[in-house]
C-alpha cells in the first residue's frame, strides 16, 4: 500500500520568492508527523498544495495514493485540514456549520456523527450558538470538528495551538493523540517545539522551501551531542574549565560536553582544585537545540 502522504519534487514560487524547492517527503499511514521550520519556511505552502488550496509549479503530491491535482476529489475526501487562521462563517450556528461542511463532502444526514464529534470536542452546549458569539478557543474547536466531519484518514493541523491557552492546548493534544491511536495519520506544524518532540514520531525541518532535516524525533535529538553542564561553585573554576565555560544570567557557568564520560573528568578537575560544588545540573539536548543547530547550519 502507498503512503498516507507522498510529495515528490514539489516546487512552488510566488513572484521572486521560492516557497518550495524540489521537496520530497513521505508520511506513513498512522504516523504522527511533524513539519517544523521558521516563518516563511514553506510549511503552509506545502499543506496548501496537499489540500488543493495552492497549485504546485512542478512535482506531484498524493494523499492516500490519490493525486491532489488529477484525482482531487478522492484526495480531498481523504484529507481533513485544520487551518492556521481562526476563520468562520458568521451566518451560521455551530451545528449548521458542521452540517454544511458534511454536505460539501457529499454526506447527507450526518447528524449522529456531528453530535459525536461535538460531544468529543465539548461543543454540544454551543451547538445552536452563532459562530460569531464563540470565544477563540471554541472557534478553534469548531475548526477541528469541521476537519473531522467527513472522517478523513489523514488530518493536517497547521499551527493549531497558536494563541491558544494552556488548558485548551493540552486538551487538544490529548484529543489528537487519541485520533492518532485510532489509526489516523496526523501531520502537525507548530512553533512549540516541546509539543512536536513529545507528540511526533518523525519530523521534517524546512528552511527557505527546502527539507533540511528528516528523521525520527529520537534520531534527530540523538544526532546532537551537546550536553550542557551547569555549575555553581564556591571558588572560581580552574583555568582549564573556565576558558570553556559560559557565564549565564544567574551567575552560574555552563560547560558544553560532547558525551556523558566528560562529566567525570570535569568533576575530577574540580576535586583537584578543591572547588566545592554548590549547584549542578546536566541538561540533555532537546528538539529546540536540534532545530536551532539545523537552522544555523543551513544558513
Amino acid at each position: 500500500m502507498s503512503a498516507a502522504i507522498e510529495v515528490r519534487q514539489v516546487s512552488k514560487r510566488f513572484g521572486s520568492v521560492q516557497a518550495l524547492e524540489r521537496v520530497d517527503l513521505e508520511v506513513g499511514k498512522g504516523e504522527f508527523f511533524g513539519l517544523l521550520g521558521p516563518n516563511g519556511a514553506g510549511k503552509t505552502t506545502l499543506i496548501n498544495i496537499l489540500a488543493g488550496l495552492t497549485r504546485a509549479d512542478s512535482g506531484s503530491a498524493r494523499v492516500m495514493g490519490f493525486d491532489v491535482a488529477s484525482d482531487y476529489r478522492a484526495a480531498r475526501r481523504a484529507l481533513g485540514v485544520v487551518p492556521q487562521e481562526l476563520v468562520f462563517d458568521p451566518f451560521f450556528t455551530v451545528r449548521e456549520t458542521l452540517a454544511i461542511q458534511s454536505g460539501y463532502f457529499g454526506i447527507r444526514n450526518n447528524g449522529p456523527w456531528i453530535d459525536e464529534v461535538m460531544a468529543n470536542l465539548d461543543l454540544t452546549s454551543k451547538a445552536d450558538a452563532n459562530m460569531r458569539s464563540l470565544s477563540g478557543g471554541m472557534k478553534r474547536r469548531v475548526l477541528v470538528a469541521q476537519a473531522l466531519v467527513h472522517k478523513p484518514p489523514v488530518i493536517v493541523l497547521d499551527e493549531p495551538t497558536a494563541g491558544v491557552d494552556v488548558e485548551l492546548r493540552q486538551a487538544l493534544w490529548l484529543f489528537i493523540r487519541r485520533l492518532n491511536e485510532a489509526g489516523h495519520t496526523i501531520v502537525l506544524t507548530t512553533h512549540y517545539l516541546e509539543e512536536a518532540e513529545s507528540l511526533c514520531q518523525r519530523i521534517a525541518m524546512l528552511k527557505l522551501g527546502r527539507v533540511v532535516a528528516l528523521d525520527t524525533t529520537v534520531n534527530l535529538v540523538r544526532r546532537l551531542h551537546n550536553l550542557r553542564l551547569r555549575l555553581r561553585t564556591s571558588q572560581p573554576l580552574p583555568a582549564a574549565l573556565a576558558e570553556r565555560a559560559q557565564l549565564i544570567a544567574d551567575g552560574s557557568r555552563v560547560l558544553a560536553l560532547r558525551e556523558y564520560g566528560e562529566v567525570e573528568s570535569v568533576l575530577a578537575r574540580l576535586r583537584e582544585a578543591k572547588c566545592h560544588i554548590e549547584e549542578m545540573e546536566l541538561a540533555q539536548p532537546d528538539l529546540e537545540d536540534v532545530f536551532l543547530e539545523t537552522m544555523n547550519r543551513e544558513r
Partner: protein
Amino acid sequence: MSAEGWEKNAAAGKILPPEAPGCGSPALGGGSSGARMTGFPTLFHKEVLRFWKVALQTVAAPVLTTLLYLIIFGHVMDRSARMYGEVSYVQFLVPGLVMMSLLQNAFANSSSSLMQSKMTGNIIFVLLPPLAHWELFAAYVLAAVVRGFMVGAGVLVVTLPFVGLDVQHPLWVLAFALAGSAILGALGLIAAILADKFDQVAAFQNFLIMPLTFLSGVFYSIHSLPEFWQDVSHFNPVFYMIDGFRYGFFGASDVDPLRGFAVVAVCFAAVTALTLAMLKSGYKLRN
C-alpha cells in the same frame, strides 16, 4: 465543563469509535469512497440560506427601493403618455423595474458572497472539499437567480394591485428573467474573483452594472431616443434582457424577442465560459 469534559471523553476512549468507517480504521476507506453525492446541493442551499437569513436587507430593502422608483417616476412622468399604443407609462415602467431589481440583486448576491468569503478567509471551507469548478459556478449562480427572482417577484406582487398588468407570453418572461439573472450572477462571480478589495467590487457595480441597467430602457423606450443613442443602446446586452422581458408582458418590444434572446444567450455562453475558466484555473482563489 470546558476542557475537563473534553479530556474526560478522550480518556474514556469515546473519540472516533472503531466502528466508524474510515476513522477507527482508515484502511476501510472512509475518505475515498467514490459513490457519494456531490457537494453542489449543499453549497446551493447554503448560498440561499446566507441571503435568506438577512432577508430584510437582501430581499425586502430592494423591493422597497424599487417601489420608490415606481412611485417617483410614475408620478413625475407624463401620465397621459402611451407606450406601444395602449400601454400606460406606469404599466410600461413596472416590468423594467422588476427586471432591473432582479438583475442588480443577482449580481449583488454572488459578488458579495464570494467577496466576503475571500476577505474573511472562510472561502477555505468551499475550496477544501471535493467540489468541482462547475459545481461552484452552478451553486453561486443559481442562488443569485433565486435571490433575483425573489426580489423581482416581490416587486411584481406589491405593484400588481395598483397597476393592472397582463402577461401575454409567460415563457418569454421566464426565459429572459432566468438568462438575465444567470448572466448577472456569473458577472458577480467574475467581479469578486478579480477584486482584491470590497471597493473594487463596488466599482464594478457602480461603474459598469448600474450604468448598463439604467441606460437599458428601464425608464423609456429606446425609440424615444435620438437615432445615435438608439444605435448605442443596441450594444448594451441589458437592453435586450429588459426589452425581451417586457415583450413577455405586452407582446410588443423595441427588438424582436428571438433576436433579443439570441444576444442574451450568446452573452450567457461567453460569461459562463469565462467564469468557468477562472474557477477551473483557481485564478486569485487557489493561490
